[in-house]
């Protein structure tokens, strides 16, 4: 049961970097079957979608299962190429991403700055 599970907290922030409006979504806690829908709802909300780019910062996610991964992959596909995920090295999420070989699909980055760079680069590629 998930009775001892900490509730999932999700913060959303909008930022303008240069001429680009970026939404940064930061889930905190465990993302699993029980709350993947919550993450999905936030990623689909106007706060996250009426921006040029979307970054999901997963560094404070202590555990993610395939339901969480599915939400992440679908969002990455929708926003492609204006999407990046920040993944802490050696984290449980990093190992999951590694296991299922989706690092390039979600444009995994080690930091926010790197994520922004990757979005820029991906955007340039897409534009060119």
């Amino acid at each position, binding site marked *: *049961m998930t*009775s001892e599970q900490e509730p999932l907290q999700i913060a959303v922030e909008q930022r303008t970097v240069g001429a680009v409006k970026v939404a940064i979504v930061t889930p905190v806690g465990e993302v699993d079957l029980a709350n993947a829908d919550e993450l999905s709802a936030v990623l689909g909300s106007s706060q996250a979608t009426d921006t040029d780019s979307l970054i999901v910062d997963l560094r404070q996610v202590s555990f993610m299962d*395939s339901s969480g*991964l599915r939400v992440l992959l679908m969002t990455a596909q929708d926003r492609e190429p204006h999407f990046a995920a920040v993944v802490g090295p050696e984290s449980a999420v990093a190992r*999951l991403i590694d296991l*299922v*070989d*989706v690092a390039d*699909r979600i444009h995994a980055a080690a930091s926010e700055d790197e994520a922004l760079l990757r979005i820029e680069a991906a955007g340039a590629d897409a534009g060119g």
Partner: protein
Amino acid sequence: MPAADRRARPAPPEIHDHFAAIVEFSDDAILSKDRKGIILSWNPAAERMYGYSAEEAVGQPISILIPDHRVGEEHMILDRVLRGDRVDHYETDRVRKDGRLLTVSLTVSPIRDADGAVNAASVIARDITRRHRSLALAAKLQEITSELSREVAAQRVIDLVLQTVTAALRAEAGAIGLVEGEEIELAGSVGYSEAGLAAWERFPVSAEAPMAHSVRTGQSVWMTSSEALKERFPALREASVQFASLAVLPLTSAGSTFGAISISFAEARELDPEERAFLVAATQQAAYSIERARLFEAERLVAERQTLLAKAGELLAESLDPEAALGRLAKLAVLHVADWCGVELVDDDGSLRNVAVAHADESRTELARELRERYPVDPRAETGVPHVIRTGVSELYTEVTDEMLAGAAQDEEHLRLLRELGPRSAMIVPLTARGSVFGAITFAASGADRRYEDEDLAFAEDLARRAALAIDNAMLFRREHEAAVTLQRSLLPESLPPAHDGIEFDARYRPAAPGLEVGGDWYEVVVTDDGSVVVTIGDVAGRGILAASVMGRLRPALRAYVLDGHGPSEAVRRLDRLMKEQGRAEMTTLFHLQYDPVSGRASYVRAGHPPALLRLADGTVVELDGRGTPPLGILDDVEFPEHAVEVPRGSLLLLYTDGLIERREVDFAEALTRLKATFAGAPHGAAECLAWLERNLEPDIIPDDVAMLAMSN
């Protein structure tokens, strides 16, 4: 010198008469004694006070009035007076002719002869026994009040009141009775013989007896002899009355009488006004303290019960296994509200099944269980659990008698067991959900201190309502779970291809335990027409019936692609396309391997799935971790590259779902390492290998809800 002056002028005779009259009619005892202490004169007040007539007293030594413990003091007083001094208002004890002690205030003065020598002493004694007593009682009352104010337990208050009041009044015995419904129940007593008490443990408020009278009328009863008592209460004429005098006062709070205190004296005794006042005040204080303590206890009980309900709620919510939850509920009940607790549920066929038994005394739980097992509840019974289940109406047995046990017993042995458990009070409440009764909880008390009343029943019903709700949820969940397990099982291959050409297969699927939803684990083994072997394992994201139904569509589709002759990359690509076409945004991971026994070569596709493990004949374990792809079903533009691997004879291949390693408590890499180590030691043969893994993997590595597929060649 003034003394000489008085001698010089003898008083006129009429003055002597005045003094004589004063002495004669004084309320104070006035007497005189000579130098040796022999009584010389004795007035009527002395007669009244000490009980001796003048004839009896005059000529006797003063010591007849002095209790043993005051003898030394009398010598001291006499010495001082003989020296010419006076002793004023000296408080001491004296003893009456009848032996009773008095408290007196003495004024002793010297009497001189014509030469001025002291030859006698005058004594004026005032009886201050009552004043003294009154002060002592006032002090005692204060003491009781202060002690009572510290007591919060009603029983302690009752005992303390009885002890202190009987001691202060020098009474032989005392009792307090409290009104319980239409009866008066003995709540405490001191000094009575057991035989004397037996008749008064519990009697109707309507009884013709002093306490009942006092409770009914709110009046006190004062009886100074057993004759008077029997005259006033003819019903007691046959009763053996131990005591001569009796005082009964009502215990009243906020205008209503809720009990009475009774004080008995061995001898016929009229209480003096101070003692009565004391008794009245002490009774008031007792009434107030008892009422306060009972309120406090009631509040504490309410608080305790609220805590208990909250605890029960938590405990019921924690478990989705109804029987386990009921077992814990029964244990909780015997810690707080019962000595024995049992739960019966109605099975689908209408029979009753005992699912929980607990006894406060752990060693008796077995006895209680034995009782329920050997003598299951008869579903046709007119009363008890079956009746409660049929009607949905609770039953309350405040008093369980031996006749009731005998009536309920199916045979001698049953009666023996029932008697051994000895329920004295019991209640049975229904478990009701969505309008139907699906069980009942029985609470029984065997101790003398617990008797169920209406408010206990209300509490038990409340507890049962909460339990029923939680259990109903759990049962619904379990039904759904069972349906999902059934579905998932029905969607997995009924059997695997038989062993051929030295190639064997085996698979295990462990469904999730109740409390965990069924996952979407699936596997398939296909042997194609050209003899190649295809093994696949997958895991649909999500759980429950939906996930099971998704994998139910995937398996036959994949099978068709394989049988159509599509290699791993193409078969998986088609499966991915199929999923996306259905537009349900479902996702599955997959490990798909095709093995050609002739060439000993295999190729595989890994889509978001952990690597399969291959153990070679020399014991080396290889991870089939060729670069994978994302899971199937949601992403566009995915290629599914194939990886080649040699599978020589003597190999053992293990495919598993990520349930085996994706545990939040255990690190992936560590779990994989441990799995590899255990797998390295497994015996050869697909079935043997899986049995070995099940036995040897730690529970945290091999959880429920996991699928494993093994192939040996």
